[in-house]
C-alpha cells in the first residue's frame, strides 16, 4: 500500500515537547523536593543544637549553618534508611503501603467517575468490622476461612460505599457531605460494637476484640510483618486499571466522570455509574480494612483505621487518579511512614513531620502553577486540565 494515501494528517496539538506524563512526573518530583525543603525548615527550627548555636549567630554564623545542615542531614538520612535501607525497612514500607494503595484506589476510582470519595475511612472501618467478625467468631478450614473473611470485608465496604452512590443517584445528596458523615457513623458504630459482648474480648474492659483465627490471617512473608495482602493490593490495582480502561462499564464511569450531562444524552445511566463506582470503591476500601485487621493488627480495635482512609485521599491525589500513579504514591507514603518511625527513634524528630511532608507534597502537586512559578524551567502542561473543579451543586 502506498504511503501517500488520502488520509489527512492528524492535527497535532501544540505541546512543549515533553509528553504529558513526563511533565506531571517532573511536577511531582519538584513537589517532593519543595516539601522536603519545607520539612527541613521545620527540622532546623526544632533542633536543639541549632537553637543553641543561633544565640551566638553574630559571632560565629557558620556554627548555626553547619548545625542546621547536620540536623537536616541526620534526620533525612534516618528517614531514608528506615524506609529503604535493607530487607526489614523495605518490608515495613511495603506493609505500610498496602492499605494506602487499596484506600487510594478507592478514592481514585470514584474520582475518575466524578465523585469525591472522602469516605474511604468509613468504608475501611465497615470492611474491618465484618472481616474481623468473620475472622474471630467463625471457625472455618484454612484458605476457605481467609477467603470468606475477605469477602465479608469487601461486602462491608461495598455497602457503606454503595449507600453513598445510591443517595447521590436517587436524591442528589452530595457525596462529600454524605461520606464525611458516614465516616463518623462508622467510627461510633465500631466503638459501640467493641463494648458489646459479641465483639469485646472476654475479660477485657478496653475496646479490643479476640484475635482472628490463624486460618483467617493473611500469610506473612518470612518473619517480616509484610503479608499476602500486599499482593492483593497490586492485583486490585490491575483490576482497577482493567475496569477503567478495558471494560464497557469502566468506559461509562470515565464518560460520566468527564461529562455527566453528555453521558446522559448518549444514553448512559449516570445514576448507575455512581452506584457502581461507589460500590467498587467501597469494596476496595473494605479490602484495605481486611488488610489491617487480618494482616497487620489481628485483633479488631477502635484504632484499626488509624488515618489510612484520609491518607488514602492524599495518595489518590498524588497518583492523579490513575492505578499506576496510586500504587507509586502509596509506596512513597508507605516509605515515608515507615522511615518516619525510624527518624523519630534515631534523631527524635517527631513522626508528625511525615504528615506535614505528605500534606505539602499534595498541596504542591495540586497547584502546578505554583510549582512552575518556583521552578521556572518546568514546561507548561497543556494536556492536563484542572482537576474536577466543581462545587456542592455539581
Amino acid at each position, binding site marked *: 500500500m502506498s504511503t501517500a494515501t488520502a488520509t489527512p494528517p492528524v492535527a497535532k496539538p501544540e505541546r512543549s515537547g515533553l509528553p504529558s506524563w513526563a511533565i506531571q512526573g517532573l511536577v511531582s518530583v519538584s513537589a517532593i523536593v519543595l516539601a522536603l525543603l519545607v520539612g527541613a525548615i*521545620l527540622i532546623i527550627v*526544632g533542633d536543639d543544637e541549632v537553637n543553641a548555636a543561633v544565640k551566638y549567630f553574630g559571632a560565629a554564623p557558620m556554627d548555626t549553618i553547619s548545625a542546621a545542615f547536620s540536623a537536616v542531614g541526620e534526620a533525612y538520612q534516618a528517614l531514608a534508611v528506615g524506609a529503604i535501607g535493607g530487607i526489614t525497612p523495605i518490608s515495613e514500607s511495603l506493609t505500610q503501603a498496602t492499605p494506602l494503595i487499596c484506600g487510594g484506589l478507592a478514592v481514585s476510582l470514584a474520582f475518575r467517575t466524578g465523585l*469525591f470519595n*472522602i469516605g474511604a475511612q468509613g468504608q475501611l472501618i465497615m470492611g474491618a468490622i465484618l472481616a474481623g467478625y468473620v475472622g474471630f467468631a467463625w471457625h472455618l478450614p484454612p484458605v476457605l476461612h481467609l477467603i470468606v473473611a475477605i469477602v465479608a470485608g469487601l461486602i462491608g465496604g461495598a455497602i457503606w460505599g454503595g449507600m453513598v452512590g445510591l*443517595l447521590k443517584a436517587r*436524591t*442528589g*445528596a*452530595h457525596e*462529600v*457531605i*454524605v461520606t*464525611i*458523615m*458516614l465516616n*463518623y*457513623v462508622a467510627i*461510633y*458504630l465500631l*466503638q*459501640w460494637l467493641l*463494648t458489646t459482648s459479641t465483639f469485646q474480648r472476654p475479660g477485657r474492659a478496653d475496646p479490643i476484640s479476640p484475635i482472628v483465627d490463624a486460618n483467617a490471617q493473611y500469610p506473612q512473608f518470612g518473619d517480616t510483618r509484610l503479608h499476602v495482602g500486599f499482593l492483593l493490593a497490586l492485583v486490585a490495582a490491575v483490576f482497577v486499571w482493567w475496569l477503567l480502561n478495558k471494560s464497557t462499564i469502566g468506559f461509562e464511569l470515565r464518560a460520566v466522570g468527564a461529562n455527566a450531562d453528555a453521558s446522559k444524552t448518549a444514553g448512559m445511566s449516570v445514576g448507575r455509574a455512581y452506584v457502581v463506582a461507589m460500590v467498587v470503591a467501597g469494596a476496595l476500601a473494605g479490602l484495605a480494612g481486611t488488610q489491617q485487621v487480618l494482616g497487620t493488627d489481628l485483633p479488631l480495635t477502635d484504632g484499626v483505621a488509624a488515618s489510612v482512609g*484520609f*491518607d488514602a*485521599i*492524599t495518595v489518590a*491525589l498524588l497518583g492523579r487518579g490513575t492505578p499506576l500513579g496510586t500504587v507509586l504514591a502509596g509506596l512513597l507514603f508507605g516509605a515515608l511512614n515507615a522511615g518516619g518511625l525510624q527518624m523519630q527513634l534515631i534523631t527524635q524528630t*517527631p*513522626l*508528625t*513531620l*511525615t*504528615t*506535614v*511532608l*505528605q*500534606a*505539602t507534597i*499534595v*498541596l504542591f502537586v*495540586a*497547584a502546578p*502553577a*505554583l510549582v512552575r512559578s518556583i521552578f521556572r524551567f518546568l514546561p507548561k502542561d497543556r494536556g492536563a486540565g*484542572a*482537576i*474536577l*473543579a*466543581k*462545587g*456542592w*451543586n*455539581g
Partner: protein
Amino acid sequence: MSDVTVQDTVPAAAPAAIEAPADRVRRLRVGGLMLVFALIGLGLAIFTKGGEATFQLVSGDLQNNLLGLPAQPVALLLGALGVLAAVAYVLRRVPQKYSGWLAIVLGVCFIGAFLCWAAAGKTFPLANQFQGTLNFATPLILGALAGVLCERAGVINIAIEGQFLVGAFTAAVVASTTGSAVAALIAAAVSGVLMALLLAVFSIKYLVNQVVLGVVLVVFATGITGFLFDQFLQEDAAKLNTPDVLSAVKIPGLGDIPFIGPILFNQTALVYLTYIAVAVVTFVLFQTRWGLRVRAVGEHPKAADTVGIRVKRVRYSAVLWAGVLAGLGGAFFTVGYAGSFTKEMTAGNGFIALAALIMGRWHPIGAMVAALFFGFATQLQSQLQIIQTPIPGELLLMAPYLATIIAVAGLVGRVRAPKADGEPYVTE
C-alpha cells in the same frame, strides 16, 4: 407582611386543594419521617417506668430547685401531642406557612418524652444539660459561621477543622507565654486568618479544587500542630502549654434571670463574642452592601463582575474574615474550655461545624440552631452515661451525622448551596 394575604383567606380546616405533585411527595416523605419519630416517642412513653422524673434546675444544687414530674403521664401526654402534630402535618390540617411549627412541636415533644423516659425514678441535671449544650455548641457556631461566610462567597471550606486546630494551638501557646487572654484570642484569630489565607490563595489564585484543598489543609494543620507539640510543647509544657482558662463573667441583671440567666449570661467572653458574631454575620450578610456582594459572587460571579464587583477581592475578604471566626472557635478548645493543648484535640468538631452549616442551609441563624442541636445531642450522651440509661452513648453521638445525611438527602426540605460554591472564577 405582604405574603400573608392569599394564605390567610383560606380557612385552616380546608387547606388549599391544589398541591404540586413534587410538594405532595415531599409532604408525605417528611410526614412519614415525622410519624416515625412521633411513634418512637409514644413508644418510649408507653415503656416509661412509673415514679417521678426529677429535673435539676440549678447546676450543682441537689437539694433545692428540683422539678419533680410524674414520669409516665407527662411522657404519654408529650408522646400523644407529638403524634397529633405529625398527623396534622401529614393530613395538612394547618395552613402551609405554619406547618414548620408542627415539626418544632414534634421535636420538643419527642425530646421531652425521651427525657421523661430516661429520667424516670432518677434525677436528671437539666441545667447541666443546657450549660453543656452551649459549651459544645460555641466552637461549632463559630466554625459554622466561618463556613457560611466562605461558602456564601463561593469558596468551599472543608478546612474548618484545620483552622480550629491551629487556633487552639496558638491560643494555648500565647496565653501561656503572655498570660493575657486578649492576646491569646487575637493570636488565635490571626492564626485562623493565616490558614484562611492558604485556603484563599490556593483556591482563588491557583484554582486548586476546593474539596481537595480542604482535605489537604486539615492534614497539614494536623501535622504542623502535632510536630510543634511534639517538638516544643511536650518538652517545655510548664512554660508553653499551661494557659489560664477564660473566667466566666456574669452580666448584671440578665445573669439573675431564673434558670436561663446562669446558663446564657454567666459565660466567658468567647461565648459572648459568639452571640455577637451570629448577629453581626447575619446583619452584614443580609443588610449591608458588602454582604450583598458576597452573596452575589457566590451565586453568579459573572453577573457580579459585569456590574463592576471585583469577584476575587470580595472572595478574599470573605474567606479571611471567616478565618477570624474559625480561629476564635479553635481558641475555645484550649483557653475557653480545656486549658492545655493536646494533639488532634478538636476531634472532628470542624466537620460537625460543616454539617451544621449545611443543616442550617447556609444561613447564620440556621447554622446556629443546627450547632445547638448537635451540642445538645453530644451533651445528652454524656449525661445519659452518668444517669445510666440502656441507650449506648455512641448511638447518640451518631445523631448529628445521621441528621445531616437525612437533611442533604432532601427528606427534610431542599438543601441548596450557593450556586457558584466551589467554582473558581476565571476571567478569559
